[in-house]
């Protein structure tokens, strides 16, 4: 058995924001589980406010004032905001003091600078507001250590700012905040000190001023990432494959127009809620468009189902690997061959396992999927390897047009670079790629052109040198493009 953590030390001081960084599998999750009492360490000790403690359950951690919020907040959707905040309070007598509860909830939230209706059900809240509720819950429990595990992964830029304000507020009130994120910009913006973990070992802890970006990455991956976000070599692309004119879907998006060529990577940029994914889903037949024209190889086509899209040579790789991307309990092989399973059926519809295996073997070598064997459960692989399996699954359908939705979400720095190289290689081999990404440096590095969307509308297409972080953001925020 591999060891998840080896002799890791971590110190948190009141009133500091401490970032914990490392690739997937570095041991961050295990460390958090130990801090919050969900798992128990084999060895070592924990000292809280000068006293040695042993946490055998999350309740005990909570009683001490250690709380955690996660990327996906855990609120009770049918309870209202105030009820969610005070869900863990049990020492208030038999009767619920509704009035006091609503007042207290309102006070905590407004102290945080959050304006929320405390009587509204939690189900209607945005992800960011749900996180605020979780933070308020922690505060109501007199939190001393707040662990934020990738809280920003699904937030828009504005919401991230809001969250950072709250974090700084907590810092002023002498709470120790442990902040985990894959986004290095954020780490540099918010953290006082940074701890790097790698392969379950403590690599370094230093104040943020002592780290340069490159150095931090180097310590995280343990090797030089020379091609990190290298820009794409501009090359001539081939004939037009996909042409979309005035593509619209009632109340979702409208007026989407672009051409996509062989060997071209078209980036799709925009803020959360810009409906980029919906355009991808329309082209893949999951949510068909209700007006507009789609031309594939010069032919007018109608895409009403994923099967139709697949037959036309369109593949869509989802952003939600866990819920929509992979059959977690099944083997790597079964996942890879799934969309193209018909190719593996012999007489009487029997699956030809040998040819299935050889396909999986081929992709394992080509994409360097790290696994003991191909009958391994996909759910037990690391995020980066799962992403590679998802890539394999769609590459195996031999698509002409490959739609990638957040191709590097939730995977570590090293795997990210590998995915980027892979996308470039595919484009060089002549595949037409549509790449939806919220990671601006990624969009810029990967794309030949960038289409920017805002609230379901196409704001413009930026070509090569025109595309910069600033020009994309100004379009995404709603300022019109001066030059068409």
């Amino acid at each position, binding site marked *: 058995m591999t060891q998840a953590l080896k002799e890791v030390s971590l110190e948190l001081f009141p009133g500091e924001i401490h970032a914990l960084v490392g690739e997937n599998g570095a041991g961050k999750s295990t460390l958090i589980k130990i801090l919050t009492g969900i798992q128990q360490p084999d060895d070592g000790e924990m000292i809280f406010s000068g006293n040695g403690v042993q946490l055998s359950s999350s309740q005990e951690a909570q009683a001490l004032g250690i709380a955690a919020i996660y990327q996906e907040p855990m609120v009770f959707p049918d309870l209202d905001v105030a009820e969610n905040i005070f869900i863990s309070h049990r020492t208030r007598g038999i009767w619920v003091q509704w009035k006091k509860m609503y007042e207290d909830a309102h006070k905590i939230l407004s102290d945080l600078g959050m304006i929320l209706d405390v009587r509204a059900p939690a189900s209607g809240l945005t992800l960011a507001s749900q996180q605020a509720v979780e933070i308020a819950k922690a505060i109501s429990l007199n939190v001393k250590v707040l662990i934020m595990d990738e809280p920003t992964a699904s937030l828009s830029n504005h919401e991230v700012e809001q969250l950072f304000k709250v974090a700084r507020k907590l810092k002023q009130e002498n709470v120790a905040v442990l902040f985990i994120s894959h986004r290095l910009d954020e780490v540099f913006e918010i953290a006082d000190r940074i701890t790097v973990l790698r392969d379950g070992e403590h690599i370094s802890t230093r104040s943020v001023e002592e780290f340069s970006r490159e150095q931090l990455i180097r310590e995280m991956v343990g090797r030089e990432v020379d091609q990190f976000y290298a820009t794409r070599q501009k090359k001539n692309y081939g004939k037009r494959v996909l042409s979309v004119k005035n593509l619209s879907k009632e109340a979702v998006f409208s007026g989407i127009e672009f051409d996509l060529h062989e060997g071209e990577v078209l980036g799709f940029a925009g803020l959360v809620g810009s409906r980029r994914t919906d355009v991808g889903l329309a082209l893949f037949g999951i949510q068909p468009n209700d007006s507009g024209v789609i031309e594939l190889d010069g032919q007018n086509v109608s895409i009403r189902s994923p*099967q139709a899209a697949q037959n036309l040579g369109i593949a869509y790789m989802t952003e939600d690997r866990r819920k929509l991307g992979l059959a977690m309990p099944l083997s790597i092989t079964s996942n890879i061959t799934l969309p193209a399973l018909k190719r593996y059926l012999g007489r009487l519809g029997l699956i030809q396992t040998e040819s299935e295996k050889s396909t999986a073997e081929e992709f394992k070598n080509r994409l360097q999927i790290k696994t003991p064997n191909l009958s391994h459960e996909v759910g037990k692989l690391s995020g980066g390897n799962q992403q590679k399996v998802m890539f394999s699954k769609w590459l195996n359908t031999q698509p002409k047009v490959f739609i990638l939705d957040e191709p590097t979400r939730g995977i570590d720095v090293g795997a990210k670079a590998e995915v980027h190289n892979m996308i470039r290689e595919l484009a060089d081999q002549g595949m037409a790629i549509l790449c939806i990404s919220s990671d601006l440096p990624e969009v810029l590095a990967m794309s030949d052109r960038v289409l920017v969307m805002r609230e379901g509308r196409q704001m413009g297409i930026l070509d090569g040198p025109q595309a910069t972080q600033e020009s994309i953001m100004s379009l995404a925020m709603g300022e019109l493009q001066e030059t068409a």
Partner: protein
Amino acid sequence: MMNVWKYLRSWEGFLCLVLILTISVNAVNSDAFLSIDNQINLFTLSIEKVIIALIMAFIIINAEIDLSVASMMGLAACALGWLVDAGASMPTALATCLLIGMLGGLFNGFWVTFMNLPSLVVTLAMLIGFRGLARVLVEDRSIRVFPSWFEELGQQPILGPLPLAVIIFFLLLILAVVVLRFTGFGRYVYVIGINKEMARYSGINVNAVKLILFTLAGLISALAGILFAARLGSVRGDMGLGFELDIITMVLLGGVSIFGGSGSIYGVILSILIVLYLRNGMSLSNITGHLQTGVIGLLLISSAMVPNLKTYWESLQASRSK
């Protein structure tokens, strides 16, 4: 050695142990138990349920449920009696009954797929609906109109000691194992059961698979209804009343997850044998039917509990070994 131990700790291994235990106790308690006559007899008495359990396994692995199977069985049997009584020829009546089964199943499937309703609700409605139709057809009568060849087919052995229904069961059993384990369709059944949306995003025609499964469930239920009518030689409106619960019990006890996505026909066969042998053994020892049902119920609860106990036990050991 390691593998034997691992197998014994799996659910199928546990079922195997229970089965061996049941057989041993039965064999000691009654000399008649192991006789071929008793074996075929106990199988024949429940053969309709056992046949339907096969397709029910597919449906539950697909993360759906069909509560209307027993009512469809009754409806098909009653329709057969009614048609023959009204002067239809046997071949016409038999074909019509199978068609009713297919259409009924397709109807269930339509609501589940295109209308996106939960199968629990749809098939509960049809449990009532099909049963109601059956009762309308035959009212309170018991119709006894079948030609003697039909009754003989249901009651007499046709191949060695085996009656037709048992032979059909074995054929369907082989088919079920092959389809579920080795075909693309079987793979789709599992994948959809694991995660329906993910299957759709993988370009699988989820609705088609579900429609086929519900249609087959209707067809096989109708077939079971016909075999039931042949075995009894007459039909009544309450034929097969409540059978769906026994059928679902067999499937769940066999280790098929009620949430779909896992389970095997092998496990279902083990659980069928356990249920049949337990009942038979208790009958041979003069234990009443009600008590028998209670014992089966206890077994089902334990089937839900044992995996939990196992995880608990393992975590306990893990924390001790530290």
